[in-house]
């Protein structure tokens, strides 16, 4: 495995995946699990060299985050998608009808198929509780991360790319170590969330191909 690329929601997912290779487990596991993991990690650190990622068969050296959201707790972003009353609607559904979720029908996927799904209180809580900054701080030192974002992204704030980089650098500094490969940021001037315009798509592709090619050479 050389590279993992995720767009938008999966941009956050690939960073979380990478963080888990550094001993981070993401958030959302049971408390017991988290504590057990913490003990395991502490134990490893005492016994072994800190370089544990090489032993993780799931380690992927190149991580490419395209237009991934950094601030998942931004309530305004959720309200703009579902309406300002979404938080009270989900809460009331959970209280009155047992947390099955508020139903939505969306057109999804490349074929725009009709999809009925439910926004549950648990999923909303997961979203609000997702801390990409903490996850960035758990990235293995060997991970090479590239964040690409369009400057005209109206879905996810373009500032996310820089925030990922800053969180990764600060997280490493907090552990008194440094990343072997400082995170890279490529801002594509004028690109929207989906890099819709052909020339913007071209810029994205060039950035990805160049980053992977460079990673393969080294």
């Amino acid at each position: 495995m050389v590279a993992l690329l995720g767009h938008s929601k999966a941009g956050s997912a690939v960073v979380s995946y990478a963080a888990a290779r550094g001993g981070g487990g993401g958030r959302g596991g049971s408390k017991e699990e988290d504590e057990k993991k913490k003990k395991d990690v502490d134990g490893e650190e005492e016994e072994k060299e800190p370089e544990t990622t090489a032993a993780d068969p799931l380690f992927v050296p190149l991580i490419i985050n395209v237009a991934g959201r950094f601030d998942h707790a931004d309530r305004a972003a959720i309200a703009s998608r579902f309406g300002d009353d979404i938080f009270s609607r989900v809460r009331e559904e959970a209280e009155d009808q047992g947390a099955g979720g508020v139903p939505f029908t969306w057109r999804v996927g490349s074929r725009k198929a009709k999809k009925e799904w439910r926004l549950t209180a648990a999923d909303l809580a997961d979203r609000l509780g997702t801390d990409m900054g903490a996850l960035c701080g758990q990235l293995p030192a060997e991970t090479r991360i590239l964040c690409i974002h369009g400057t005209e992204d109206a879905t996810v704030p373009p500032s996310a790319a820089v925030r990922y980089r800053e969180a990764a650098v600060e997280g490493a500094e907090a552990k008194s170590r440094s990343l072997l490969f400082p995170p890279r940021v490529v801002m594509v001037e004028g690109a929207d969330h989906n890099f819709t315009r052909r020339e913007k798509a071209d810029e994205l592709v060039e950035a990805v191909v160049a980053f992977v090619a460079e990673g393969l050479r080294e």
Partner: protein
Amino acid sequence: MKIFTFQSISPHLMRLHYAPTAAMAGNATPRALLRRRVEFPSKEKGVNLVGELVWPSDERSSLVQSSMPATSSTLTTSASEKTLPVSVLAHGLADDRDSFLLPRLAEELALRIGVASLRFDFRGNGESGGAFRFGNAATRDGDPADLEAAVEFLLRGEHEEEP
């Protein structure tokens, strides 16, 4: 020689310049693309994920697992024993493996720098099983669990079986 430049919105942002790599330069003849629909288990019991592998072929199509160390594990073509690095390309909310620029990225990575890729539908999306969920982008048992399932599938080498 082509040089690509990305404009920066702020001076501390990276400027990316690059020229075609040796691998690209040595690849004057366009290679053919090979594709295979694949299905593999997710981390959720009884739920399968569906995806497509794309890889370049200038020799033989059969993919054989490399015996290289895990951190650099690659696919190899059986005829040449040439290693073929592999990537995973993942889609966003309410998308699927053919959304965004993922199919194009798969083709360009394969044809230009010889990198294979797996695109798959997250649980509850596209052809994959399971429930469609909001959130869960970064939680261990959310989307990252599907990424782990995809990487493990590639490392197991089950995709190598010829029909």
